[in-house]
C-alpha cells in the first residue's frame, strides 16, 4: 500500500492554453479536466452535477468544441486549448451571451449556466444564425432544473442578434 496518498502524487505534467493563457500544470495522473480546473487551477466557474457525463454542468470548450470535462482526462489536454466560463468575457466586458442570459432570466440558480454558456458559444461560433430547433438540439445535453429552458433559448437568440450587429459594426 502506498504510504503517500495517490492524490498527492502529482506526477503528470501538461502545458495547455487555458482561456488564452499558457498554463503549466503538475497533477495526479488520474484526474479529469474538471478536477484539475477546479481543484488544481482554482477555476471554480465550471460546475459539476454528476461526474458521470449525465448533466452537462461541467461543459467546457476543448479546441472550440464542447466537451464534458468530467469525462476528459487532464492528460489528454496537453498542447490543446481549453475555454471555460472564466474566459468568456474580455476587455472588461461580458460576452453578449452573458449579458443576454443575465438580462433575460436565463440564469436562475446559475449552476448549469457556465456549461450552457460555453455550449451556446460553440453553437454560435459554428453557426451564427441557428434556428430554435438547432438551439434546442445543441443544448439537449445540458440539464437545467430551474428555467424550463425557454428563457435560455430566448437569451441565445438575443445574443445571436447582438453578435451579428457587433459584427456589422466592426466590418464598417
Amino acid at each position, binding site marked *: *500500500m*502506498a*504510504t*503517500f*496518498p*495517490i*492524490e*498527492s502524487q502529482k506526477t503528470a505534467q501538461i502545458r495547455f492554453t487555458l482561456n488564452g493563457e499558457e498554463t503549466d500544470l503538475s497533477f495526479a495522473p488520474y484526474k479529469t479536466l474538471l478536477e484539475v480546473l*477546479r481543484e488544481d487551477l*482554482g477555476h*471554480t*466557474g*465550471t*460546475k*459539476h*452535477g*454528476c461526474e*458521470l457525463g*449525465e*448533466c452537462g*454542468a461541467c461543459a467546457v470548450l476543448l479546441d472550440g468544441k464542447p466537451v464534458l470535462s468530467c469525462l476528459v482526462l487532464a492528460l489528454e489536454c496537453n498542447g490543446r486549448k481549453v475555454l*471555460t*466560463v*472564466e474566459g*468568456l*468575457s474580455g476587455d472588461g466586458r*461580458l460576452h453578449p*451571451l*452573458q449579458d443576454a*442570459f*443575465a*438580462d*433575460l*432570466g436565463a*440564469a*436562475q*440558480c*446559475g*449552476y*448549469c*449556466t*457556465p456549461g450552457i*454558456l460555453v455550449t451556446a458559444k460553440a453553437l454560435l461560433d459554428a453557426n451564427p444564425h441557428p*434556428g*430554435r430547433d438547432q438551439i*434546442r*438540439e445543441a*443544448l*439537449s445535453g*445540458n*440539464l437545467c*432544473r*430551474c*428555467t*424550463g*429552458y*425557454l*428563457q*435560455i433559448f*430566448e437569451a441565445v437568440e438575443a445574443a445571436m442578434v447582438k453578435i451579428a450587429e457587433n459584427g456589422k459594426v466592426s466590418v464598417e
Partner: protein
Amino acid sequence: MAEQKEPVKPSRPEDSRPNGEGLRVIGVPRRRVDGRAKVTGQTRFADDIFLPRMAHCKLLRSPHPHARILKIDVSRAMAHPGVYLVLTGKDLPIQYGILPVSQDEQALCVDHVRHVGDPVAAVVAREELTAFEALDLIDVDYEILPTISDPEEALATPEPRIHEYGEEGNIHKQVALEFGDVEKGFAEADEIFEDTFFYQGSTHLPIEQHASVAIKDPDGKLTIWSSTQTPHYLHRALAKVLEMPPAHIRVIATPNGGGFGGKSDPFNHEIVVAKAALLLDRPVKICLTREEVFYCHRGRHPVLMKFKTGVKKDGTITGVHLQTLIDGGAYGSYGVASTYYAGALQTTTYHIPRYRYEGCRTFTNKPPCGPKRGHGTPQPRFGQEVQLDKIAEKLRIDPAELRLRIVESPNSVTANFLRLGTVNLTECIQRVVRISDWKSKFRKLREGRGVGLACSAYLTGAGLPIYWNKMPHSGVQLKFDRGGGVSVFCGATEIGQGSDDVLAGIVAEVLGIDPFDIRLFTGDTDLGPVDLGSYSSRVTLMAGNAALQAAERGKGLLAEAVALKLEIPKERLRFADKRVFDSTAPDKGVSFPEAICLAEARFGTIGTVGSYTPPKSPALYKGGGVGPSPTYSYSAAVVEVEVNPVTGWVHVPKVWIAHDIGRALNPTLVRGQVEGSVYMGLGEALMEEQEFRRLPKRLSHALVHKFPSMLEYKSPTSLDMPEVVTELVEDPDPRGPFGAKEVGQGPLLPIMPAVANAVYDAIGVRVDEVPITPEKILKALAEKKAGRQPRFGPAHFPTVKWPEPLRVPPPWEGGDGNAVNDVDREKRRATKEKVLAP
C-alpha cells in the same frame, strides 16, 4: 421561427401605494441583482469553497434497506495513510429532525439502518480520494431485518418497527378531520363520484449536489457554509446535536444550485463535517455524489388516494371525502406536515361546504420523503382536478364552465378555516380558455390530439413557524452609508428563485435608488436577522414585507432631515432617481447620499429594522396549523397533447397558463418561475419517478433504488420542453409587498392533472396516476379495445383503521374553528400557552 414566444404582457395597474407615486423598479422586467455573478461563474456555491488545510469527508452508507448494526470496526480505516478521523454513530448520538414532533434522525446511525444509503460512519482525510478509499476499510456487521417496501406492506407488517415512535406499528402519522357532516352532504347530492388515484414519488434533482464546508473559527466558534434552504433550522439542529450554544455557531447558506425543497432539512452530512472541523481544528468539506443525493431525497411522497365527491346537477359540490395513504420512507422529515398538507388546500379553489379528510403516512425502508415544490398538495390536487374532469363529462358541462361555477370567493373562510386573500381564479380560467382557444379545441380535435384544463392554489408562506413561537418569521436590517450605499441584512436564502432580487427591488423602490446600489448580506445567521428559510413560497411576502417596513422607516428618517433642510413639509418629498426632492418643484432637492448625511447629522448613525409576522389564523383545531397562509396564489392551465396510439408516447406541443400573482415584482423572474414550474410539472406528469426494485434473492433481495443516476432518472431536456404562454393576472393583494403573492410553487400544480385530462380528450382513456408513461397509455388502450373500462390506475384503496375524526363545524354551521370532540384541547392549549409565554 416555429415557436416565437408570445411576450408576457403584465397588466400594470397604477401604483396601489397610498402616496400614488409611479413605480420605477417594481413591475419592470430587469436583470436580477445577482445576474452578473451567475453568468460569469462567480456565484460561490458551497463546493466552490477551498480553504487552506482543508480536509475532505466521505460517508459510509448502508448497503441494506433495513438492518441492525451489530459491530463497527474502524481500525483499518484509521490506519490508512492520510486519514485524520473516523466518526461513527456514538460520536453524534443526539437525535434531530426538522419537525419538533419527529426528532428521529441521527447524523450517523448508531444501531439501526433504515434505508440503503443511511450513513453509518464518516472518514475525514487529507484528500477526497483517500477518504473514499478508506470507506472500504471500515468493517460493519449487520443483522438483516425484513424490509418494508410500500405502505400496504407497512400496514400489514407492524413488526419489526422501523421507528419506535409513531401511531402504532409502522404507521407514522394518522390524521382524521371532518368539517361538517359529509354524509349529509352526500345525501343532498344528485351524483356521487368515487375515484382512486396514485401519484408516484419523484425527486428534486437539483443540478448542484449538496455540499458543506465547516471550520473552527480562530476564536473557537463554528462556521459552516452549506447548500441549505433553511440556515435557521440547520443552526438549531447543530446547536442541539453538537451541544453548543447557538451563539457559537454561524451558518452561512451559500447560494443553492437549485433546491426545490430538497435542501430544507438539516442533513447528517452537515452535522458530520461540523463535528469533524471542531475535532480536527481544520476546515472539513463534503460534497455528495449524485447517487448520495438520491439517498438524501426528501422528495415527493408517493400517495394513493380516494376521492368521494357529491355534486348537484349544476356542478355545485355538496361534500368531499378524501383519504390518502402516504409512503413516507425511512424518516419523519416534514412528513407530519406533508400528511396534513395532503388534505389542507382542497378547499381553497372551489366552494366545498362539507369536507372530511383522512390521511395515513407509513414508514418504509426507502430514502425519506419530504417537501418537494408544492409540498403535499400536488398529489390530491391531481386527484381532485382529474375527478372534476370526470364530473364535468358526466354532467355534460364544459370543464372550464364547471369550475367557473364553483370558484371560491375572495376573502372568505373555507370549511377548514383557511382565510383566503384575493382570489382571481375566475380570471385565470377565463384567460387560459381565451388564449388557448379552448372552446374550438375541447372534444373537437382529431383522434390522438387533445386538450386538458386544471386549476390550483398555493400558500404564500406558511402561516405558522415550524416550532411554536410568537416572534417574526422574517427580519431585515438596513444600514445607510454616507456614500449613498444601502446594505440589506436578512436571513433569507437565495436558492435561485431571486430572493436577493426581491429584497433589493423593494428597498430600491422605496428609497428611489437603483437595485445595483444595494449590497446584500443574506442567508447568514451571524449577519442578518432570522428569516425562516426558502420554503412554503414565503420569501417574497414575508422577507419582502420586512424589507418594505425597514425601508419605509429609513425613508422616514431621511425625509425628516431633508424636509428641515429644504423647509418644506416632508409629505411633499419624493424619493426617485437617487434624489430626494420636492414633488411640486423637482429641481429643489438633494442627492440620496446628501439625504443620508443630513439624516446622520440629525439622528446619528442610520440603521433601520423591519419584520413580518403573519396574521393569526382562525383554524384553532389540532392540525389547523398546516394550511393557513397570509394569502394564496391561483393558477389555471391548459395543456395540449399529441398521443401516439402505437407507441403510447405523449408529446406536449403547447401549454397555456395564467397565474394570479398579485403583483409581479420582477416580471422576468416571475415568468421564469412559472415556466420552471410548468417544466417540473411536465416531468412529474410524464416521466419522473423515484422507483425501487428488489435485488434477486440470490443476491441480498434488498430493496434498492432502481436508478440513482441522472441518466436513468428521466427528466425533461431542452428537446422536451413545449412552448409556454404565460399570462400574469395582477390584482395587488394588500397583504403582499406592493401586492405580490407567490409564484415559485403554485404554477406547477395544475400541470399534472391538465396533462391527464388532455390525454383523455385525445384518446379516450383515463390514466389515473402519474407519471403517465407510454406503457400505461398502451395498457389503458388495450383495456379500451377489449371493451373493458378504458383506464389505467389503482384498483382499490386498502382498508385503514382510521381514528375517530376531530369534528370541526364549518363557519356557516356556526363553528368557531375548534373541534367539538377534542378531549385534549384544554391540555394542548395549556402547553401551547406555556411554549408561547414571553
